[in-house]
């Protein structure tokens, strides 16, 4: 009986996570377009629903109804596989992320995480690395110059930014003496990691921007010079898959920033429910992502590589050394 209850709970949590991650891009696209509009003194979508609230739904219906076009010379198998490969890892990763301590509902303790892995951080970094395959396959399979160029850029970008990202979180792991995200958050109950690890956070956030392929590091899609980058040839629902994956990664980086550096669900000063604190912090980071997008221009490709290898990598290494020395 207990086993069934536990299995049912896990199934419920996974279903909830999948539903949330599939539905969240809808309000996020609306938010992004609204914020973009207002930052450019426009209004953004206004006509579908109240202040354009139903615009993402209309867009979704449009994408579903569109022709699902596959170029003649495309590698059909890879072309169909790529959006799924891009979509799955961000969903898998959320299994390892805790959203709070347990709450008791109807007498049973329900933990606000699908699984408490002791190597959660490693798991996340490893699984999110798979996402790059979707991008590379998509660009390669489309058999288009723009797409190949876009996926080439992404490939180099993802690989070179995963290294500083991985190094940046080592400082956090050293402080918490654990790779479990739950333990990392518990270790931040008094003082958030951002106090001890400002450089680590900086490196992590910049690398996260690059991983999520957001401006100023969105060279993979660079509308100006590559058409639409690796998903130039995609249309309809497959294109939507790429978009959903992009938003899921943006969410993931926001959630990771909060969990690793901003104390997770630990609040300060104002006593609010832990989950609310968590959501507020994540919302701030999502806003920061959008805000940055409409503030900064795009980096040139050599600048991107230089920032990754010549600035972020030494900074993250120095951060590890300083943290280690301070520990001793």
């Amino acid at each position, binding site marked *: 009986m207990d086993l069934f209850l536990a299995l049912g709970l896990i199934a419920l949590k996974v279903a909830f996570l999948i539903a949330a991650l599939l539905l969240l891009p809808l309000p996020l696209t609306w938010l992004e377009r609204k*914020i973009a*509009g*207002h*930052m*450019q*003194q*426009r*209004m953004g979508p*206004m*006509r579908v629903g109240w202040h354009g609230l139903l615009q993402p739904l209309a867009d979704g219906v449009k994408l579903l109804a569109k022709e699902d076009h596959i170029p003649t010379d495309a590698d059909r198998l890879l072309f169909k596989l790529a959006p799924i490969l891009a979509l799955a890892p961000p969903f898998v990763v959320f299994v390892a992320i805790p959203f709070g301590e347990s709450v008791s509902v109807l007498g049973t303790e329900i933990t606000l995480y699908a699984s408490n892995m002791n190597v959660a951080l490693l798991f996340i970094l490893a699984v999110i690395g798979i996402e790059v395959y979707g991008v590379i396959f998509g660009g390669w399979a489309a058999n288009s110059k723009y797409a190949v160029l876009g996926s080439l850029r992404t490939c180099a970008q993802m690989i070179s930014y995963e290294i500083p990202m991985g190094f940046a979180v080592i400082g956090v792991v050293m402080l918490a003496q654990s790779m479990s995200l739950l333990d990392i958050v518990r270790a931040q109950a008094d003082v958030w990691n951002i106090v001890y690890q400002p450089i680590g956070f900086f490196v992590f956030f910049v690398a996260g921007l690059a991983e999520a392929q957001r401006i100023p590091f969105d060279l993979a899609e660079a509308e100006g010079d590559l058409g639409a980058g690796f998903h130039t040839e995609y249309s309809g629902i497959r294109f939507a898959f790429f978009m959903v994956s992009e938003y899921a990664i943006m969410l993931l980086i926001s959630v990771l920033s909060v969990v690793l550096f901003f104390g997770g669900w630990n609040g300060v000063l104002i006593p609010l429910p832990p989950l609310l604190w968590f959501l507020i912090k994540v919302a701030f980071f999502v806003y920061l992502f959008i*805000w*940055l997008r*409409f*503030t*900064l221009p795009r980096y040139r490709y050599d600048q991107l590589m230089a920032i990754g290898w010549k600035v972020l990598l030494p900074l993250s290494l120095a951060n590890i050394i300083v943290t280690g020395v301070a520990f001793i």
Partner: protein
Amino acid sequence: MSRVVDRGGRWIGWAYFADLGKALALTLSYMFSRSVTMQYPDKEKWLPYPRYRGHHFLKRDDEGEIKCVACELCARICPCYCIEVVPYEDEKGNRRPAKFEIDMSRCLFCGLCEDACPADAIALGQQYEFSSFSSRDLVVGRDDLLAKPGKAATGGAVVAAQLRTVEQDVRVEASEHQGYNWWRNIRRR
């Protein structure tokens, strides 16, 4: 000394991304400023200035008689030959147009017909919403031209308006004539 401080200040600013902070502050301030969007078909409509060159109209004189003397000067000067005039003699012995057709799909709204007219009979008015599903509907005859709205009295303002869709006919109706200055929301330095 001050130069050293300056250099030091610049270095500190560089280290703490002062320029990035400034940029973020700027975009945030824009985010909370008024938007300049004119919500044209749904809520607002722009009224043209008196000198705006919109849809042609034919004028009547004080007796209500059409002013046009069918001299065909407008048809001659028209660079895209979109005006066709056929004269006739009415019962008072005056030369008047029996047929006065303008092909709006060819017109380029240069206003030369207005300049050429010796009788001050034709002019370009304020109407700018006359799109159509068929190019045949864009050939406008004499009586329709007489009924078109004339030059705008005021103009350059944005007034509240409403989108009306009545079978094939899509119109944006403005209720008032005094609006607000559209430029007031535009931030200039």
